[in-house]
């Protein structure tokens, strides 16, 4: 607990650098990732991450220095080449995009490893630390690193904000973008460059292999919460930033632990949380909705059965025993009682000495359900031209879902019918 407080106070300047760096890296990758995700090229980030390595090695071999600007330039060039290579292979041969991605990724990385080990075996002392590019080094970022990589991250965020509308358009509707005269080729180039740079700086946090998570996971998690791109980007950025903070905290409190993998674990946790708890799209929301649907079907079916018994007996006020209701309609074990209790709570039925009866509120409601059922049967017969003995099953489902607007539409289309296909009255 103490270490958490100490960490959060940001008193240690090293901690401040690491946190600031991780947050900026996480955010910029997450924001750029939203676009690759929506363009269904999520694994492009993975390919770029692997392809950066030979560029870094060559930049070091040529310049002999580990200046972050020089390494970044090398990374950007080879990252860019990999994007171009994937594009050319997919367009000019019968190879499919996934093969092209896997091919470029492994070949560039293999060449990178060859160069890296070659450099290492030269015994050049200044190379030490070059392999940090493989696994990330969030925990050991220096102020210069943060300045460079954080700076690039900031720049990327600004570019995305400046070109937000254009990027949005080429992600959703590139044809339309072309038609209205946007410079699509330039925008594609810009977006690819932004992606390459985001990956190049993001690797500092998590390393080559795990970089894909920094690009994909925040966007995938954010997608569960919203249908709006702007909101999605903000949520993704928050997930990215929080994971960065979490990763730096872990390596602060347990220095033997690698930062990158913990950032990825945090990101995966955000994906799982979103998958479970996001409103509407989350599993829990879906379970609840299924439960509600089921409850609605159950209670409305009970109301309908009570109405039908009343209709036959020409008495809607009498109370009915469970056996009588079951004769009218089958219910799963325990379901009938459960449904009746729910209806009683809503004051649609009351329990009497000899069973259950509809309240006046319940009668109105049951009449509505029966009306919808019979209207839909009429619709199936008249407009879908089903035979009389086939209309019932379809109506059993749809009666529960018809809204008042559709009810009105149905009545108009059918000319306000009074009787259903089985010649029962359609109650008003």
């Amino acid at each position, binding site marked *: 607990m103490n270490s958490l407080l100490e960490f959060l106070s940001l008193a240690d300047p090293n901690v401040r650098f690491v946190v600031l760096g991780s947050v900026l890296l996480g955010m910029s990758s997450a924001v750029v990732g939203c676009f690759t995700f929506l363009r269904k090229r999520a694994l492009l980030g993975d390919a770029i991450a692997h392809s950066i390595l030979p560029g870094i090695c060559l930049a070091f071999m040529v310049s002999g220095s580990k200046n972050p600007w020089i390494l970044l330039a090398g990374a950007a060039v080879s990252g860019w080449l990999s994007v171009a290579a994937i594009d050319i292979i997919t367009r000019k041969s019968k190879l499919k995009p996934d093969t092209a991605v896997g091919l470029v990724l492994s070949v560039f990385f293999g060449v990178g490893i060859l160069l890296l080990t070659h450099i290492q075996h030269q015994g050049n002392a200044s190379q030490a630390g070059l392999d940090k590019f493989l696994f990330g080094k969030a925990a050991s970022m220096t102020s210069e690193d943060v300045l460079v990589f954080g700076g690039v991250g900031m720049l990327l965020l600004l570019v995305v904000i400046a070109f937000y509308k254009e990027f949005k358009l080429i992600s959703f509707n590139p044809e339309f973008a072309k038609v209205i005269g946007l410079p699509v080729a330039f925008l594609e180039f810009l977006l690819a460059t932004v992606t390459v740079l985001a990956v190049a700086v993001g690797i500092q946090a998590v390393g080559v292999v795990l970089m894909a998570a920094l690009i994909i996971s925040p966007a995938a998690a954010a997608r569960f919460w919203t249908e709006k791109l702007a909101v999605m980007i903000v949520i993704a950025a928050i997930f990215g930033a929080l994971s960065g903070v979490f990763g730096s905290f872990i390596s602060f409190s347990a220095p033997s632990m690698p930062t990158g993998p913990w950032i990825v674990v945090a990101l995966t946790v955000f994906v799982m949380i979103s998958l479970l708890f996001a409103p509407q799209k989350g599993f829990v929301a879906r379970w609840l909705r299924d439960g509600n*649907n089921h409850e609605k079907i159950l209670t409305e079916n009970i109301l309908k059965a009570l109405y039908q018994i009343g209709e036959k007996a020409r008495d809607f006020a009498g109370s009915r025993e469970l056996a009588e209701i079951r004769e009218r309609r089958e219910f799963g074990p325990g379901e009938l009682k459960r449904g009746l209790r729910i209806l009683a709570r809503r004051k649609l039925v009351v329990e009497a000495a000899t069973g259950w009866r509809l309240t006046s509120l319940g009668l109105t409601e049951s009449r509505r359900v029966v009306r919808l059922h019979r209207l839909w049967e009429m619709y199936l017969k008249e407009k879908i031209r089903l035979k009389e003995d*086939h209309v019932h099953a379809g109506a059993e489902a749809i009666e529960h*879902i018809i809204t008042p607007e559709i009810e009105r539409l149905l009545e108009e289309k059918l000319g306000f019918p009074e009787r259903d296909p089985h010649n029962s009255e359609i109650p008003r």
Partner: protein
Amino acid sequence: MKNPIIEVHNLTVSYNKRPVLWDVDYELPPGQLIGVLGPNGSGKTTMLKTIMGLIRPDSGFVEVMGKKLDEVRDKVSYVPQRESVDWDFPANVMDVVLMGRYNPKHMFRRLSKEDRELAVAALEKVNMLPFAERQISQLSGGQQQRVFIARALARQADLYLMDEPFAGVDAASEESILELLTGMKAEGKSIMVVHHDLQTARNFFDWIILLNTSLVASGPVNEVFTEQNLQAAYGGKLTVLSQIADLVASKAFPLREKGLQDREKL
């Protein structure tokens, strides 16, 4: 109808939770050339895939020759749309046609001489025998289609379901495919064909199924092709149905309760 070759009963099918076929209900006579027609998105392909057991319906059922599909699978043959495969796949015409002879019970056994003879005969029927060793990537659209039909023929089935066999084929291929179908009918086979061209349908088929997310009509050609039916099929979507379909999809509403299917009856 006596001994229908296919019986479709109250079939409702959804795609991504949205119903695309509503309460479809019909029986088909055996030994006929049956055309399935309707506008784009009217559920023609979905219908065929449901019959072939590739899509599970939300409600209703299909019977083929009075039985469940699994019991008569050997007697049913399916010709999917040409676009459903990657024609760059490294295989030749013979390889593809021989797939028609694959039997799930004998997956580890080599194909027999008889299998090869049946494949050759099937290729001969579609006039593709000279192309037997041709790589499939080098075929024209009409030739690809004929290879798919030959694969189906090699199964020696009694019922054939074909998804758009006339789509994108040249006039010569169309002619030869039609001739083939007529010949198959003469041998007593039943053939159900998804088709997109109203003009030619009248001459091609004996029986027509007209779809527009629900069944508009099913019957002999002359009875089905009425002004009123065509208006119902091609005059636009039914507004009520598509509104309900949207509601069902957005609320993930179950179209049939579990465990209570078809049991209750008014």
